[in-house]
């Protein structure tokens, strides 16, 4: 346990330090803002939120949640040893794939 914590701290610290020392520094206005989420901190009335954010966020939620379904199935598969469950989950993933192909080919993933 302690070894793990130690390793974690050491590796993490080492990389951060290296980054700090070696990384190029090009400070800009956007980077210096307190929240680094893509949004300006001060929002005026006329500000419009880029629609592309919604698209990506929605797609993320979609696929993310569907992937969450895979966890219990993994556990089940382990317990049940059933071909039926395997086929079902393969079908599920296939349908997801169809959706993914559609999203991809329609260009929803291209940033506009």
């Amino acid at each position: 346990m302690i070894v793990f914590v130690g390793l974690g701290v050491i590796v993490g610290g080492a990389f951060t330090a290296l980054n700090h020392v070696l990384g190029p520094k090009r400070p800009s206005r956007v980077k210096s803002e307190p929240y680094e989420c893509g949004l300006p901190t001060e929002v005026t009335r006329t500000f419009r939120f880029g629609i592309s954010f919604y698209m990506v966020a929605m797609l993320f939620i979609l696929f993310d949640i569907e992937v969450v379904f895979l966890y219990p199935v993994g556990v089940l598969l382990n317990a049940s040893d059933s071909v039926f469950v395997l086929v079902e989950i393969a079908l599920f993933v296939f349908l997801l794939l169809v959706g993914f192909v559609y999203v991809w080919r329609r260009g929803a993933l291209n940033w506009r």
Partner: protein
Amino acid sequence: MIETPAIDYGALSPIIALVAGICVVLLVGLIGPRGRRGLSSALTLATLAAAAGLLVWQLGEPDADLVAGALRSDGLSITIGLIVVAAAALVVPLQLRDPAAEEAGFGETHTLLLGSVLGMLLLAEAQNLISFFVALELLSIPLYVLCGSHRSRSRSLESGLKYLIVGSIGSATLLYGSAFIYGGSGGATDFTAIAQGIGADLADDPLVLIGIALVAVGLAFKVSIAPFHQWTPDVYEGAPTPITAFMAVATKAAAFAVFARFFITALGPSADQWQPALAALAAVTIVVGNVGALGQDSLKRLLGYSGVAQAGYMLTGLLLGTVKGIDALVFYLAAYMLINMAAFAVIAVRERETAYGDDITAVQGIGKDRPALAWSLTISMLALAGLPGTAGFIGKLFLIEAAVAGNYTWLGVFIVVGSMISLVYYLRVVAAIWMRPAPRLAPAMAGASTEAAGEPGLPRRTGEPGRTPSGAPSGGRCWLVLGAILAATAATVAFGIVPSPLIDFSAHAGEGLASMLGPG
């Protein structure tokens, strides 16, 4: 160890065919712009044909519980499924030159259409509260999108948004009610288990009573029963016409199927307690729908209100709780599908040819230069009014006979009183077709008279009838659309003269629920 649920793949096959079709049509829509329209339409039709074929095959098979009792394939679900599939198949040619479909993409439009069909099939088969709700959402969500698919028309977007909000309220109400029923019946989701859980007397359990009321309200939103109908004319008017047609017919069919299954299977023992309430709703709906349609100038609004009234007639068949009532309901739905499809198709064609949109002016005087369209719309209107020689008459006859046999003669009288009122507005349309001259102003100049003319993307008539401004033949001259219109009209008349085949068909529905139903 997990137990594999019992799945009847044979009975599930129409659903499987549809899912496969959805995937294919969606992906085909991605292939370059050329051939998309024809190819995706053809594939959609093929999918629907496959589903229809499998449904017909299942009609001969014994009733079956599909997925561990969550779905049930019986006469009711199959007949309703066939009605829905037929409606969708008639919509597909109508989409061919639809501006909304052009704009949104044929692959997407057809995928959504098929998705909605899938939801309807599942809804007709739903045998438990969970599958009920999931199917209802699967049915609704594609329709919300389709309603708003004519993106350059603000009316369409408004319609989509309105439908989304109202539909969500309906779904939420329904879900809330399901929860009450789940609690009140001691944790049952299956319809038959609910029937055992709540017994015959509803009065001693307010929880269940509230639950039933909420579910009924949720369903009433879907089938547009007054006083939950207010969205109907607005949404019908704004949605692209082919979608309106599909929505008006197929949603109603599927929702009535689950309405019947839920009330008769889950609440069968307490029938005499909910029957009077539904009867009152039916009577109110008939009156409200028919009176509301009286002053309408927009044909789609008119048909929207008429659809409300028709829902009242159909509810009569449902609430009787007899085999004959269910048969009459399904017969009426089948006839209504044919009639409405023809009517909306004619409206869609005229919408694309003139700048009057769906205003009654658009069909004025078409008796002279477009006899095929004129006759189709005329026959549809007469059939909706229930005049003899059409399937509409037989439908009313069937419903009234069932109502009298089920001791609801007064509802039978309400049906004919409703028909009388309805004649005024149906005949107004017929009068416009045959007895008024065609509008003389060139439609493009008459822009002031129709607010739709000011909107972009609307075809303007450039002289020659039957052609869109780009010179491409519009729907009216497209043999596929005309064929669909004439086929539906011919069937309306044929089933009005020789109704027996359609009655035999609808009799399957009653058989499906026969064990739960009273005789007669």
